């Protein structure tokens, strides 16, 4: 089976205060492939993900996204404290409008059914992360951008992310995952992208 969707980046440079954050980045990513962005703290992993997401504009270089809509989980989770887990997720599903999936099922899948009706302000950091990850499942996006998805999660949560990721990649999706390297997801089509801080030259 061939996948005609592609995300390709050529010579991406992002400058902050006229200094490149990282050395030029090149990659191309097809369906069923995982791009693992690694590097030391402060080398621009989050910046690269935000550039790919279209929140930041690259100073130079070209990004070609054939996947269409993206789903992104970053450091700011985009969860409303005054809404319950269920209300948060239901809003995201209706807002994106791409999925008819039952929010209750998704919440059960990420292991939050016990707190589904609780306001998000009462959740722990790990539970909040799971709530944000649940958004990936109601987005139906083919391209996931995950920035440190394993942070704050317990072992079971890490397994949950791996399971979600495997399922997503097996069904032809692609993922860009930034991690500082404590845990590596195990997937056969993994490309490595080791970022080097722009300040090192």
């Amino acid at each position: 089976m061939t996948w005609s969707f592609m995300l390709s980046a050529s010579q991406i440079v992002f400058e902050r205060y006229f200094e490149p954050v990282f050395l030029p980045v090149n990659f191309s990513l097809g369906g069923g492939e995982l791009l693992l962005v690694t590097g030391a703290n402060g080398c621009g992993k989050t910046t690269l993900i935000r550039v790919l997401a279209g929140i930041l504009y690259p100073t130079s270089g070209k990004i070609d996204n054939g996947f269409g809509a993206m789903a992104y989980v970053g450091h700011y989770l985009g969860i409303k404290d005054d809404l319950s887990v269920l209300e948060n997720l239901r809003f995201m599903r209706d807002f994106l409008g791409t999925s008819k999936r039952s929010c209750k099922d998704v919440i059960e899948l990420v292991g939050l059914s016990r707190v589904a009706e609780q306001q998000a302000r009462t959740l722990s950091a790990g539970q909040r992360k799971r709530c944000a990850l649940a958004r990936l499942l109601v987005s139906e996006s083919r391209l996931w951008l995950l920035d440190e998805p394993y942070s704050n999660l317990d072992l079971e949560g890490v397994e949950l992310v791996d399971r979600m990721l495997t399922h997503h990649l097996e069904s032809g999706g692609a993922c860009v995952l930034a991690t500082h390297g404590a845990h590596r997801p195990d997937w056969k089509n993994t490309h490595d992208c080791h970022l080097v801080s722009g300040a090192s030259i």
Partner: protein
Amino acid sequence: MSAQVAGGSLSGAFFALLRRDLLLAFRRRTELLFPVIFLLVVISLFPLGIGPSPQLLARIAPGVIWIAALLATVISLDALFRSDFEDGSLEQFVISGHPLTLISLAKIVAHWLVAGLPIVLLSPLLALWMNLPTESLGVMILTLALGTPILSLIGSIGVGLTISLKRGGQLLSLLVFPLYVPILIIATAAVMAASDGLPYTQFLGLLLAGLITSVTLAPFAAAAALKISLS
């Protein structure tokens, strides 16, 4: 194969966001009451400060009510995008692929329903306090109904520009008050004309024109300002 864009309908996204913002406002209803109470306090201070002469109060009523409405709106403006900016919701909106203009418009509409509409609904009471002649009460309500949405719309541009600053709220008031001046002048002129038995429809026409212009242009400007603030 062509790229697939966000599949969801725009009206679905608009109403989902509007519903969420109203629900959030309801959950934080104490915050919601602040601007309204502020408005009532400011207006009740005037008779105390300048003396309860009915003629004098009637003369300054349009200006006082409108200035209090401006102040109350500016107080509530900062909340328009602040929490969405700080908790990452705004990033999610950008990535969703829905136009940011539409998102801004939904948030502005929610803001007006929560902050502007109460002023319009309270205006008969305010007019009574300030001894506004009853024949100009209808015009007063009309100017507020046409004018407060303009305040929310113009304000949204200022909020978009100052949202990434830590103390954006203070700069915001300096930024938007000059833009509010024409609305203040036109609206109070309409009410005063009505009190004096002069024709006032031209002023209402101007306000309506301002409303139409700002509805069509402000969401685009606010969206552009938000994009700058995000990067």
